[in-house]
Each structure stands twice: as structure tokens, then as C-alpha cells.
């Protein structure tokens, strides 16, 4: 079932084109969003998060058109978002910050305390729940960001570089969390770490230069790397470079 349907999406920042008539659909599961720096990953995620308005095209999420204010509000209720740089209030405790975000999402007040504790436990910060964010390390702050994104059990979860700053053990646990979340909802993870994609994603979307470069399963991407002579140390890294090179050759023609 498709939860996110993108048609002819166009995003422009001043004079540069970030996304160029993109057509995509995402269903339940964990989707890895790969691409070089400046490919348009963050632009796509910000449009899907209803933070930025596209300059052209249509986006339907969870059966609503996000150009319509009422539809947008309904989508936001069931949306989780972790921006690349998320601002936080240093004087808030973890519990307060996540509760504040839950309040902003208009979660029923009765359910909020339990939901906050569950979200914080899921990211492994249960022992730090009443500590001020100011005193946390960079990786822990990142996990607070993930906790606020999942506090409302979102049907669509958008994560921009979620694993940056996490230690290897945390990343393994986070992939487990991703798989768990992907069972019930649509999770879109933008990342540069292809190992995460190989381990946790059910589908890979590669964007380059604002256009779709490749779509398939991680296994297919790995196979592509083995078949062609991609560069890299990891099989899926070879697939990534091969797909990118093929896309550039087509684009150059």
C-alpha cells in the first residue's frame, strides 16, 4: 500500500534546482534515501515533513493532499520528523522536551506521559529521562531527536541523518528499532552510511542531481555492484557507485 505519493515534485532554492520533476511512491517499510551531498535528499524530506512548500508538483500522504491546510494538519498528526539540525532548549529535561513536542502534535493529554516514557526507552535513554539536554553528549542529543520523532507512533517517519554521532553499538540497536518501526509504518531514512541501508532497509532510493537515479532492494543494489565494476570496500558501496555512474552516463547523453 502506498502511503506517500509524489508526482512531478519540483523544488527550487533561489536559482538552484534542488529537485527536478521527481515521481516517487513509498509504502510501508524502511526506505533508505541515498545520494551524494547536495543531491536533494534534505529538500525531499523537508517537503514531505510539510516544513517547506514545493515550487511545483503534488504530494499525497496518508490519503491527504499536503497542499491543503486541513490535509496538512491531519498528516502532521501522524508524522514524525528528525531534521538534520534540530534545535532544542538546553534548559529542558529529556522528558520535558519530548512531552513538549508531543503537545505540539496535539496528542491526547492522558496518553502523553506513557508515550513519552516509551519513546525515550526505545532510544535507550530511560536512565537519563530527567536530565537536562544541555548535559547530554552529542549522540545522546541525537537520540532525544529520534525519541521526539517517534513519540506519537507516526505512520510516516522521516529521519534526516539519524545515525550521525551514534556509536557502533547504538547504531546496531537503532537499526533494530528501524526494522521494528518499519513493520507498521513508512520510514524514510536519509543517510550516507550505506551499511545502515544494507542492514535495515527494505528498499533503496538513490537521488542524484535532483532526479531519481536508482530504485530497488538493498540486495539488488549489492548484486549490481558485483555485476559491474563499482568502486568501494563493501559490496553495497560498490553497488552505490555503480548505480551513480550509470545514472551520470545516462544524464550526460
Amino acid at each position, binding site marked *: 500500500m502506498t502511503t506517500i505519493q509524489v508526482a512531478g515534485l519540483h523544488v527550487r532554492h533561489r536559482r538552484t534546482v534542488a529537485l527536478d520533476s521527481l515521481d516517487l511512491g513509498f509504502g510501508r517499510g524502511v526506505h533508505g534515501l541515498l545520494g551524494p551531498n547536495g543531491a536533494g535528499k534534505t529538500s525531499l524530506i523537508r517537503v514531505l*515533513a*510539510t*516544513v517547506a512548500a514545493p515550487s511545483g508538483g503534488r504530494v499525497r500522504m496518508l490519503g491527504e493532499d499536503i497542499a491543503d491546510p486541513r490535509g496538512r*494538519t491531519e498528516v*502532521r*498528526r501522524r*508524522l514524525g*520528523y528528525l*531534521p538534520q*539540525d*534540530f*534545535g*532544542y*532548549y*538546553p*534548559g*529542558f529535561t529529556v522528558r*520535558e522536551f519530548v*512531552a*513538549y*513536542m508531543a*503537545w*505540539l*502534535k*496535539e496528542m491526547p*493529554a*492522558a496518553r*502523553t*506521559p506513557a508515550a513519552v516514557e516509551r519513546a525515550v526507552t526505545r532510544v535507550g535513554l530511560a536512565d537519563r529521562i530527567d536530565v537536562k539536554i544541555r548535559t547530554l553528549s552529542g549522540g545522546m542529543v541525537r537520540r532525544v531527536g529520534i525519541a*521526539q520523532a517517534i513519540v506519537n507512533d507516526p505512520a510516516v517517519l522521516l529521519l534526516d541523518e539519524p545515525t550521525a554521532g551514534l556509536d557502533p553499538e547504538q547504531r546496531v540497536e537503532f537499526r533494530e528499532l528501524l526494522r521494528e518501526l518499519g513493520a507498521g509504518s513508512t520510514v524514510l531514512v536519509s543517510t550516507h552510511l550505506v551499511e545502515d541501508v544494507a542492514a535495515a532497509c527494505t528498499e533503496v532510493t538513490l537521488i542524484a542531481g535532483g532526479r531519481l537515479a536508482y530504485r530497488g532492494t538493498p540486495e539488488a543494489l549489492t548484486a549490481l555492484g558485483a555485476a559491474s565494476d563499482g568502486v568501494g570496500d563493501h559490496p553495497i558501496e560498490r553497488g552505490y557507485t555503480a548505480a551513480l555512474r550509470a545514472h551520470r552516463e545516462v544524464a550526460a547523453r
Partner: protein
Amino acid sequence: MTSTGIVLYARSRALPQTVAALAATTVLAVWATHSLDSYLDPERRVPVVALAPLVAATAIGSSLHSASEELDRTAVRPWWRRRLTHLLCLTALAAALLPLAVLSSAQIFGPPAMVRNVLGCTGLTAGAAVVLGARLSWLPVFGYVSAMYMGVSGLRGTSLPAWAWLLEPGAGGGAWATAAVLFALGGGAYAVKGARGTP
């Protein structure tokens, strides 16, 4: 939990500190009118009537800053209502507190002039927050108050032009109208658009 949500919102915008700053401004303003011997001549209150609303508006302006701008924009709750309430409550508080400094005479630079200046300055600050970001919102209003404070003292005659609303001594209708329009425009722009996100 709803009340907790509002409390958290208030803390996220540093409202307790802002209220404390407004209270401190009031105390300073009362002390200043007293030490300027303003009972001798109401004109001596001009510094208080011009500067106290400036400081209050600066405090209110800096409370419009949000640290989690990107996340705020995905909120389900309609922001404009919250922003408007936020601005109106603080302006009302300032407009209620600051006139305490100039109670002794209502005619010249009295409570009506103080309330009018609070409205005008806050409107300018809110507008500046939309354009420049909340943290730098004090700059335009500061320049305006400075220029007026110095410039208008040299103006001939008693009837001041509309843009000199800050220093109209009485409760003149024109100055009130200008200040009210500024507050409506600035406050409206802030309620609709919110403060510009700055790092």
C-alpha cells in the same frame, strides 16, 4: 497535561525571564521618574516614557525566538493563535505595569502616553522579528526611539507629525492611531508568519 504543555511552551520561549525583565523595567522606571523629580515638570518624564517601553519591547521581542524552529513547523497545533496570545499577553502585562511609573499626572506623558508607546514599540519589534529574526528585533525600534528622542526635541511648535507618535505629550488621537496601526501590522505579521528563523 494540557496545562503542562502550555507551561513547557512558556518555558521554551523564556517567558518567566521575560516577565521578570518586565517587572524589573517597571521598578527601574518608577525609580527613574522619582529621581528625575518629575513632579516639578511632567516633561522630565520623557526619558522614562520613551525608554521604558523600548526596554519592555526589547524583552518581548527576544521572547519571540524559538530554538526548535524546524520542528515547530511540523506542529499540529495552529501556531498563529499561540503566537497572538503570547504577544497579546506580554503586551498587556507591559501596558499594565509600566504606567505605574507615571501615575501622578494623566495629562502630560501620563499613563495613556505610556500605554501608547508600549503598543507602538512592541508592534515595531514584532514586525522586526518577522524580517530580521527575534534576536535582532531590538535594533530597528532602538534606532527609532533614539532618533525621535533626539530629533523631536528640536521640532518647532506643539503639534507633532504622525511619525513622531512616541513623543506626543497628551493622549492625542493621531499618535494613538499610528501606534495602534503599528501594533496591528507588526503583531499581525508575527502571528501569521512567525519570527524569522536564525541560528
